[in-house]
């Protein structure tokens, strides 16, 4: 469904991605793991059109989306749930969700999708008139996920959904993401919490300093000592 080949991205002098390739098949959950600064977020930002590609190609459903505007890419069906949630903190819960479907104009469909989100997250329904900045971290995460779902995407990308959340909320968040995939939406997730992510995914990629170091089914990577090394440093392989 989504295919990246030889993508290179630069921020000024620093090359964040040095020619990576990956595939996300339809209706699957693919994760991208790796240590801080490996280039995970940049990959997602490049897919959504927020970071220009220096070279390489990104295709979605067979269409070349490299260099398209963020709005165009969104309307093709790729939603991006950004790192750190980034809810509009001074707008209400409802307005945040409405921003999620900014490009849509089918009011009936929007209304039913809103109902769907509210049934999925009853906490948000209770607080629909509340300003998002006053929500707890977990509630903000639900809101960010709901907002991404409001565009009725074919593919949702999550950037570090567990970041800064308490462990029980993390588990809940992963359950929701699992549910999204089961309902037929493709998921590409970047996650630092590697074991949990690898445990739930269909396929995984390990990024290291802007290059793909390893790929394979989740259970295979979990047992690969290379993953642990990537996080905690070498010299541990036999620990």
């Amino acid at each position, binding site marked *: 469904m989504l295919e990246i080949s030889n993508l290179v991205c630069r921020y000024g002098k620093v090359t964040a991605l040095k020619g990576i390739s990956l595939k996300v098949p339809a209706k699957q959950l693919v994760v991208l793991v790796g240590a801080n600064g490996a280039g995970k977020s940049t990959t997602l930002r490049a897919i959504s059109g927020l970071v220009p590609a220096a070279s390489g190609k990104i295709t979605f459903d067979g269409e070349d989306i490299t260099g398209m505007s963020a709005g165009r890419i969104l309307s093709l069906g790729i939603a991006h749930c950004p790192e750190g949630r980034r809810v509009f903190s001074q707008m209400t819960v409802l307005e945040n969700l409405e921003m999620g479907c900014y490009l849509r104009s089918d009011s009936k469909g929007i209304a039913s999708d809103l109902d769907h989100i509210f049934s999925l997250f009853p906490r948000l329904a209770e607080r629909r008139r509340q300003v998002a900045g006053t929500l707890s971290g977990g509630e903000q995460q639900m809101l960010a996920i709901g907002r991404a779902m409001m565009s009725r995407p074919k593919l949702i990308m999550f950037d570090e959904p567990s970041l800064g959340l308490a462990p029980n909320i993390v588990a809940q968040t992963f359950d929701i993401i699992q549910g999204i995939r089961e309902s037929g939406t493709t998921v590409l997730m970047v996650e*630092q919490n590697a074991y949990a992510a690898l*445990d739930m995914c269909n396929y995984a990629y390990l990024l290291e300093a802007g290059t793909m170091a390893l790929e394979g089914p989740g259970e295979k990577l979990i047992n690969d000592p290379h993953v*642990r090394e990537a996080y905690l440093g070498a010299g541990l392989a036999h620990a």
Partner: protein
Amino acid sequence: MTVAATGAPRPILAIEHVAVHFGGLIAISDMNFVVNEGELVSLIGPNGAGKTTAFNVITGFLKPTKGQVTFKGQSLNGLKPHEVTSLGLVRTFQRTSVFEKISVFDNVLIGLHRRTSASLFGTIFGLPRERRQEKALREEAWEILRLVGIEHQADELGGSLPYGDQRLLGVALALAANPSALLLDEPVSGMNASETGRFVALLNKLRANGKTILLVEHDMPMVMGISDRIVVLNYGRIIANGTPKEIQNDPDVIQAYLGQGVKHA
């Protein structure tokens, strides 16, 4: 704990019961640790664990909600960042570590700010004392550049240096303030292997000169290789404090970094 055999460890920096809340969000809850004189301690932890927040509290850029930081026995509570620097506790920054549009040499001269006592009057009238002082400062700036190993680039603009050299210049700037303790915020992130190698060599040199160093860093091989002691933060709380070996085999640390959901390991 693991301080060299020069006698009992003498604490230079102590963080006691520090907590930081941003609105409802708890960035740091009850943090306690000590850095001893001459020690190299690393502060590590996953993203969002509160490391940079901790740095900001220690150096006066952020006021803690609770608790206090003491340096050389003096409480830093309520001090402004430049006053903290004056006590000899100097930091570097993750991103903006140098003055980009100023020459490397002048960068270091700016760093030497704290060492001058030039009077405004003397400066404006070009009195001998101020001239002598200025000359001495320039000498010292050269010395620092040589120590760090970027003296051949003295005339370049700070921002035009290669990335690794910029970070070295950042340390030179901090060193110019004559710190007894140096706080480095992710100094080698984004460096390539040879740059990291140079940086580690510099750190070792500084240690040999008796500087105390507190490091926040993600580069695990480097942290494991150089630290006397490692403090691990997760969710704003210290989950481990020990030697690199102890840390590497600490199940809590492994869980913090790689997450739950593992049946094996």
